[in-house]
Structures are given as C-alpha cells and as structure tokens.
C-alpha cells in the first residue's frame, strides 16, 4: 500500500462538516489513489496472466469463425462432395483433405464451429438461469424453500447429465435440433451451479450491508437482487465458463454416440463419428475435427481457470 496518502478531506465529509469540529484531523480518511474492489483486483490480476490473453484471443477467433465461416472457406461443406476424391489427402484449396464421402474437411471444420458454440451458449444460458434462481432463492430464503429446492436439485444431480441427455435424445429422436439438444443437456446440468451459488449466498447473507439494507426497509426480494446476488455471483461466472466447455464436449459426445444432431448439421461430433471407419486409411479426417473441438474446449477451460484464480485469493495462494 505504498500509494496510500493521508489526505485532509476538502469536499467529501463522512462525519461532520470540517468547520463544525475542532478535531479536523479525526475527519481525515485514508484514501487510496486507486479505487479497488473484487472485480478491479481480478482484472489487474488477469491482465498480467499470459494464459488469459491466449485463451481470450483463441475464443475471440473461434467466435469470429463461427459468425463468419464464409470468410475462411468458399467451399460449401455439404453439397459439393464428390466420391471420386473420397479420403484423398490435402490438395490446393483443400488444406485438410477430404472425408470418406468426398467432402472438404477444412470447410466442415470451419462450419462446425457455430454449432458447437451455439449449443454451448444455450446450455450455459439454461444452466445459469435455472441455477441462479434455485441457488439464490434456496440460500437467501432458507427454511422449507431451501429444503424443497435443494432436494429437487439432489434428484437432478443424481442423474449424470450426459446419460439423461442420452435418454431424452433417444426418446425425442424425431425432434433433434440445436435447441432440443441444449435443453436435454441443460435440464440436468444446473444443480452444481445452484449448489455453488447457494453456499455463496449463505455466506454473503451474513454481511453487515445486507442487515443495513433490511434495516432501511428494503424488501427481501430487492435486497436479494441488488445486494446479495451481485456480491455472490463471482463463483457462478467461473462455473459458467467451465460449463460452456463441458456443454460443447457433451454435444460432441452425444453426436458421436448417434443421438446428437442429425447428420445434416455441421457438427464436430458427427464428423468424428463418421470418420471412425476411416481411422486406418485416413486418420487425419478424424484428427482435424478432434483438434478443433479440443482447442475450443481447452480455451474455455483455460479462461475459466484464470478467472477462478483471479477471483479467488485462496486459489492464487496455491499457485
């Protein structure tokens, strides 16, 4: 705290106007020239971490590819396949070669990005919404609301979410789409978010500012929304980043198992499943989509990891 200075306040008074008291010195407050809070601290920490920048740049790049695939490849991924080039290696204009069906691998990898990202984002949205509602209400109101909500969470938690998604997608095989698969994954993935938020809300609820808010007559729901929630959301942000990665893996796994998206969708999981029969003859058709999938998942996990360290002093100490 070398930048701290003792300032005699001139305009801001916390106790009483300075001329009303002879003890002006009492009124002096320690003012750091830099404001500080959890988020600013976290940002200062993040700024200096190369892993944050690497994962951030990768994610921006992947999002860019997902939004504008046509900037990267002019070859259509699906309707220009020729069996005459089946399993061929790279050739000019087709840097990653061809699949068994004679489709351009590079184009399929590029067009697969948007599917993975949209499933990931939708699942994250579902998980965050349900998890925050359940966790916040259970933690803040306690009592029977807590018991009921958390027992419901226990039941959803007890079914591994990929298995649940396998069941849902098997039953709803006629309605396979990005929305349905996101719902199938998200419906069973939220309890861990709810649990984490609940324990954080329980901690924050004890703070003096919450008591002050209640004492000032602010309603319970208002207190929860404007004081408790913003102060307990940090761990949720970390889980959310990691759950985005988990959702992308889940979609690929489901597509790989054959209960994910129909083959008309560009999906890395579908491509990996289709390429497994060519593993001996042309392993690269399997490697490229796998690499794209792994790098995407890795960037989100890396981002989550760095944010966790930045927001959690205990994790920083363990480094």
């Amino acid at each position, binding site marked *: 705290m070398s930048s701290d200075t003792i300032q005699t306040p001139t305009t801001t008074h916390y106790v009483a106007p300075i001329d009303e008291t002879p003890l002006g010195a009492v009124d002096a407050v320690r003012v750091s020239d830099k404001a500080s809070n959890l988020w600013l601290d976290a940002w200062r920490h993040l700024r200096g971490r190369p892993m944050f920048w690497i994962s951030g740049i990768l994610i921006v790049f992947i999002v860019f590819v997902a939004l504008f695939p046509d900037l990267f490849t002019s070859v259509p991924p699906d309707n220009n396949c020729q069996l005459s080039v089946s399993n061929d290696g790279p050739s000019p204009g087709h840097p990653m070669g061809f699949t068994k069906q004679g489709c351009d691998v590079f184009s399929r990898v590029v067009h697969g990005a948007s599917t993975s990202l949209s499933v990931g984002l939708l699942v994250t949205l579902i998980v965050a919404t349900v998890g925050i509602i359940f966790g916040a209400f259970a933690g803040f109101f306690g009592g029977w609301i807590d018991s009921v909500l958390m*027992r*419901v969470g*226990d*039941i*959803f938690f*007890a*079914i*591994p*979410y*990929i*298995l*649940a998604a*396998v*069941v*849902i997608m*098997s*039953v*709803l*095989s*006629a309605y396979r789409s990005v929305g349905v698969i996101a719902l199938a994954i998200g419906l069973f993935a939220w309890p861990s978010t709810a649990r984490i938020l609940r324990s954080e809300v329980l901690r924050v609820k004890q703070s003096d500012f919450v008591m002050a808010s209640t004492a000032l007559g602010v309603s319970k729901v208002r207190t929860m929304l404007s004081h408790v929630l913003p102060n307990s959301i940090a761990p949720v942000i970390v889980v959310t980043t990691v759950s985005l*990665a988990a959702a992308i*893996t889940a979609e*690929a*796994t489901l597509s*790989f*198992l*054959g*209960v994910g998206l129909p083959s008309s969708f560009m999906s890395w999981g579908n491509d*990996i499943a289709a390429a*497994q029969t060519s*593993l*001996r003859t042309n*392993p690269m058709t*399997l*490697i490229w989509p*796998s690499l794209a*999938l*792994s790098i995407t*998942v*890795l960037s989100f*996990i*890396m981002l989550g*990891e760095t944010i966790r360290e930045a927001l959690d002093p205990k994790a920083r100490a*363990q*480094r």
Partner: protein
Amino acid sequence: MTGYILRRFLQIIPVFFGTTFLIYFMVFAVPGDPVLALFGDRTPNAAVIEQLHIRYHLDQPFIIQYFYYISGILQGDLGMSFSGQPVSEMLAATFPVTLRLAVLAVTIELVVGVSAGLLSGLRKGGIFDASALVVTLILISLPIFVIAFVSQFVIGIQLGWARPTVGPGAPIQDLILPAIVLASINLAVVTRLTRSTVIDTNRNDFVRMAYGKGLSHRRVVPTHILRNSLIPVTTSLAADFGILIVGATVTEGIFNVPGVGRALFNAIRLGEAPTVVSFVTVMVILYLIVNLIVDLLYGLLDPRIRYVK
C-alpha cells in the same frame, strides 16, 4: 455411527424415487403415443407395440404406470431388448467385464493421480508441478472419444504395442489400453485435487508439529500429509462415477470391449430407446449406491462428518 448410516439410508430413498420417476416421466410425458416415440422414425411391428403397451400399463393412470414400473425394477424385470433378450440377462452377461475394466481404470487413476498430485503438491511451483498443471489442463479438455481414437490409432495400430480392439473373452492384457483411456478422464481431476489438498494439509499445525518432533520427511509425508489428503479424493471418486459410466460407454464402444458400456453404446446407435432407458435406470441406481457407500466410508474416515447435525 449407526445414526449416521441410518440418516444416509433415509436420505437416499426420496432421491431413488425422484430419479426413477424423472426418467420414467422423460420417456412417457412425450405427446402422442410414447411407445411410438420410443422408436423415433422407425415403425415397429404391431406385436411389439402391443407388448410394450402391456408392459408399461399404458391404459392405467400415469402414477399407477410408474408404480408398476418401479415394482418391475425392484424385482429385476427390466424389459426386453428388440432382439427379445431380457435386459437383465444382458446386464448379467456383460457386467463382469465392465467391472474388471472399471477396477483397472480406477486403480490406474488412483495410483498415478495421487502420486502425481502428491509430488506436485509437495514441490509447489517446481518443474514437475508446472508440467503437471499443463498436462492435466490438456487432459481435462480432451473429450474421451478423442483420447480413445488417438491412442487406438497410435498405440494400437501404428506402434502395435496393444491390440486396437479387445479380443474374445476380454483377457486382462487387452483391457490395459482401454483402462488407461478410461482412467485418463478422471486422472486430471484426481491429480489436481490431491495437489490442492496436499498444499492445504501441509499448512496445518500438526504437520509442523510432526517435523518439529524431528520426524523425517519419509515418515511425515505418508502418515501425516497423504492420509489426511486422501479423504476428499475418496468423495471425488464417487462424484466422478457418473463420468466413469459415460466414459465406459464410449471406451467400450470404441475398443469393442464386450461390457455393459458396449451394450448401451450399441443400443443407442441402433435407436433401441426402451433398452437405453433400462440401462440408464440401472446405472443411475448403481451411481446412487456407489455414492451411498462412499458417503458411509467418508464418515468412517473422517469422524468430523459423522457428528454434523
């Protein structure tokens, strides 16, 4: 301890009914004839529809249907696969192989994960620690089927160190490669958890005390640090059992291991939804039982847990 055991048993009952109800609900709350929905875009023959209607008591109210289904499960009746084989028989035939694979995988995961975690936790910030962090980060990011295919291709096909697919009877030497693949998913979690608990334990006064008494490193590390660090690892094993189930399905499918996972894998691929539902139900129940056992074990290992509330 008896009170603790009793409490845990009572807690699992609502979860058991809740999960089975949820699975049943997911299947039979679909609009239209749920039996037709189970077949997706295929049309089953009339006899199969008839048989499923009778099996699931579809003329009865929903809640009665559910109780018929539950009593069926409790009596070991899990329905038939499309080929006419009872699902319970399929499970009995394939379970020993999966058990062998899972025990092998968990052993690898524990031995490698705990020793790597211990080493990096004790030498925090060292070269081993730094590289372990990077390796586990990559391991966490790689989907299981990518690890399975790459190791099948590199180790099985290119190097020829192991058979790329498991031979008949699933001899143990053929299971080593699939077990390593299966272990790799939770390996990173075990390593990181061990590392962070070792770091936490290391800060405790009893560790300082042990060194202060003049005990050697060789004595303090296994008896004081490691033993206390293993408790959270035990719970994480149970929590990750779900990942192990999914991982076994994918691994057994890829390496052609004749276990429960491959049977589920084939049922999923063939679109046999009723078989899939039966398998998932059994695995969820198994998951609950494993978690119960580990919880009880946890109470045995850590007396503090027993006396809460």
